[in-house]
Each structure stands twice: as structure tokens, then as C-alpha cells.
């Protein structure tokens, strides 16, 4: 099969076949990252603009390295250093960037749906690097890639996602992605952090971490987003750590070979005990490593292919 997306806006629109095509493509790009000279000429002459309206180290660096290893020219724009602080609207900013003829805009924005909004209005391709509490497709794809790397196949696995479900775009993309690939998703967190009706996306809801973790193949801990509403939804960070933080003792309830994941950045001692974050079951750094390969695959697929029939 072939897959020629114009944009990557979310996992919701992708089929299982397309997701696997992306993961297989990433598998091939992974080899480049281990070479002595980590560069291929695939996207020579393409311009990738990383337009980040929210703080990010991992995702932005990962997209930037991915673009550079494919020989694309990458430009970073962060909100604090852009005209946004002077009052320019998103649409104006985007049109001004487009006037310089980039091929791909990779955007992170605090408003859900911001990437879809741009994709409808711009001629260039748009890749969603996280929009509000909506989707974060590249994260879900690198998570799936990492699970596949450690477990072989995703079908039939039980994956627990724990933390602030309401404000997490990682959760939504992961629920779509894991469901399409045939895994069973359990979500868990304090009642104040689980939106009503989330089970309609295809997951089981637990309000107790121990129950959720029992016999799981994979435990994905989310960050308590102190910069967002996160901190006001729980009585105290210490109480959260006691009931919903993953300790070595709680991890024993999961399968022996369960893996522990975290999209980063980790609040050590809050959602994840340091001994677990650095333990043998942790694959957090594999996630970061795989992120570059997955983002190379996304840039390649969006830049290549005949896009004439679309638009």
C-alpha cells in the first residue's frame, strides 16, 4: 500500500493500515540515527517551519532533528520570540509565514483544533505537534512504535494510561491509536481529572490505580500539568503521589514484563517514583529515541507523494 497524506492532524482520521505504514516507514528511518553520518538527502530543498506557541523541548527538538537528518531546512518560531506577543492573530502569523513558501508547518498551539483551522486555510502541509487538549499524533505514534518494539505486536495487549485524563491530548491520540491497533485501553486517575463520557472513545475507566494496573502489559503515566489547571483539581501533590503515583510496589501488580512509559517531562516523585523511572522496566528514553524516527517518517510521508488530487 501507499499513504500520501497532505496533513497529519490527528490519529482519529487514520486507519490501522495507515498507522502501521507510518510505523514501518519509521522502522527504516531508525537505522539512519545510528549511522556515523546521520543524514540522508530525502527532503533536500524542503523548508519545515516549527511553529510552537507552547513550551516544548522534546517535541520541537525531535521534529527539528528529524527534519535536519532528512536534509530539510528547519526554522523554529516560538511564541515568546514572535509577533504573537505583539498581538498578531494566528491566521495572520500563518499567512505571513506561508508567504515565505515553507513546505511543511509543524505546529503546537494551546487551542484545540488550531491545526485543523490552519490546514483549511494554508496551501502548505500542516503537522499537528499538539493542539490544546485535542490530539498529539506524533506522540501516540512513537508510543505505539515503542510498544511494538518491546512487545512485538500491539494486538491483544492491555495498556493503562494514568493521570490527568481531562487535560491530556496524549491520552486522546493514544486511545484512538491503540484501539485501532487492537489493544485494550484502561484509563485511570482522580475523578476530578476524568471527563464524563470518555469511555465512548473506547476505554475502560478505573478510579483506582491498583485495579487498573493489575495484569497490564504497559503502564503509561501522564504528567500532572502544573502549568495548566492540573494542580487545582487535587488536594495536594503529595496526596496525588500516594494514590496515583507509580511506585515499585504498585508496578508489581502489572505483568512481570510490563513496560513503563511517560511522554515527558517527568515530575519525579509525583506521578512516577524515581526508582521506577530509572528502573529496568522503564522505556522512557526509548520513546524519545523512537520519536525522531517516527517524526522523520511523518515529514517524509507529508512531503512526498502526489498531492494534486487533494486540495
Amino acid at each position, binding site marked *: *500500500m*501507499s*499513504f*500520501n497524506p497532505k496533513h497529519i492532524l490527528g490519529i482519529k482520521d487514520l486507519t490501522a493500515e495507515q498507522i502501521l*505504514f507510518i510505523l*514501518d*516507514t519509521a*522502522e*527504516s*528511518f531508525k*537505522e*539512519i540515527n545510528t*549511522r556515523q*553520518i546521520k*543524514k*540522508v*538527502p*530525502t*527532503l533536500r530543498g524542503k523548508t519545515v517551519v516549527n511553529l510552537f506557541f507552547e513550551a516544548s523541548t522534546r517535541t520541537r527538538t525531535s521534529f527539528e532533528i528529524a527534519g535536519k537528518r*532528512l536534509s530539510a531546512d528547519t526554522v523554529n518560531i516560538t511564541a515568546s520570540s514572535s509577533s504573537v506577543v505583539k498581538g498578531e492573530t494566528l491566521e495572520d502569523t500563518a499567512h505571513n509565514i506561508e508567504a515565505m513558501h515553507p513546505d511543511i508547518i509543524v505546529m503546537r498551539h494551546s487551542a484545540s483544533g488550531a491545526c485543523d483551522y490552519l490546514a483549511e486555510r494554508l496551501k502548505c502541509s500542516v503537522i499537528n505537534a499538539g493542539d490544546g487538549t485535542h490530539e498529539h499524533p506524533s506522540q501516540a505514534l512513537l508510543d505505539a512504535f515503542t510498544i511494538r518494539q518491546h512487545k512485538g505486536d500491539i494486538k491483544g495487549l492491555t495498556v493503562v494510561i494514568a493521570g490527568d485524563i481531562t487535560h491530556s491530548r496524549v491520552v486522546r491520540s493514544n486511545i484512538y491509536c491503540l484501539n485501532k491497533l487492537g489493544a485494550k485501553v484502561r484509563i485511570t486517575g482522580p475523578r476530578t481529572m476524568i471527563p464524563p463520557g470518555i469511555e465512548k472513545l473506547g476505554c475502560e475507566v478505573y478510579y483506582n490505580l491498583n485495579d487498573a494496573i493489575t495484569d497490564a502489559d504497559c503502564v503509561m503515566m501522564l504528567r500532572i500539568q502544573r502549568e495548566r489547571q492540573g494542580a487545582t483539581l487535587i488536594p495536594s501533590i503529595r496526596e496525588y503521589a500516594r494514590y496515583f503515583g507509580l511506585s515499585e510496589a504498585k508496578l508489581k501488580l502489572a505483568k512481570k514484563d510490563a513496560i513503563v512509559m511517560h511522554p515527558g517531562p517527568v515530575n519525579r516523585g509525583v506521578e512516577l517514583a524515581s526508582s521506577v523511572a530509572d528502573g529496568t522496566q522503564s522505556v522512557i528514553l526509548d520513546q524519545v529515541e523512537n520519536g525522531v524516527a517516527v517524526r522523520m517518517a511523518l515529514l*517524509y*510521508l507529508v*512531503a*512526498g*507523494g*502526489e*498531492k494534486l488530487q487533494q486540495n
Partner: protein
Amino acid sequence: MAAETLEILDLDGVNRALTRIAHEILEKNQGVENLLLVGIRTGGAHLAAQLQQKISEIEGADVALGIIDVTMYRDDLGSRSNLSIGQTDIRVPITGKKVVLVDDVLYTGRTIRAALDAVIALGRPENIQLAILVDRGHRELPIRPDYIGRNIPTAQNEQIKVDFDDQNIPQAVHLLRN
């Protein structure tokens, strides 16, 4: 589907061609020392494995084998559907080696151009040679094979197809005419 199919080489024909190429590679390089066969995915990779086997039968010595995927080095990104990218798997350092690139059909030469870039990106070989099962002409780049199984002048609307069985052993070569 093609209107007409002609058999160019049968199983014995393919085998004789590969055996001759194996001998020629050994003769030109005076043995297997420093030699590295690199098959281009996917047809060339299967043929390279055959050549490796034949060389070890003739010479009684093993020659290193690698597989290369050239999709990332192609010059036609965006003018056709996205191709799936296979993995490059060369486990020996390429610097200083005599690299024999192996492909099934030589046509415009653009795949070989991409393969040359792909090999050179991995190191600095002593030299690069090219082995081809079928040369069908119509070159668009100044590329010339060192070892040729069969020269078959073709028309642009014809196709050359190398058939492999499910063990990836080459079975025959066909010309399809539309």
C-alpha cells in the same frame, strides 16, 4: 495486464547468467578479499544472495553481503505515490571495500545513481562495480554496468519482469509488451 509475454530467460538461463557473473566478479577482483556484495531492494537483494552462494561454491570462500534501500536517495519524491522504505542492512564497514552493487533490471540508471549516493553515504569504498541481470537500455544518466546477464534492447512501452519464487530464488525473466 500485458497483451503479450515473452520468456527471455528460463530457470537454466538465469542460473547460467548468474554463474558467469560470479566467475567474472572473481576474475576481475582476483578472489573475494575485501569484496562486498550489495543488493538493491528487493530484486537485487535476492540476486545478490544467489551470487554470494555461487561465489562460495566456486571459490570455497564466503563473501560479505549487504542489502541497501535507495528510496531515501531517489530524485522523484513528490512526483509519484510514497514508496514504502525498506531497511538498509550492511553489517561491515564499507570504507576500503570493493563494492559490487547488484540489481535485477537496469533501465534509466536513476536507481543506480541513488544507490551510489546511498553507498557513499555509508563510507568510502575502494571502488564500486555494478552487476545487472538484464540491461534493457534507455539510460538517462551516464551509467555503465560491469557485469551483465543479458542485454535486451526494449521499447519504452515494454516491461522486463524477473520472477522469484517464495524462497526468493529467481525463476525466469519475462518481457511484457502492452
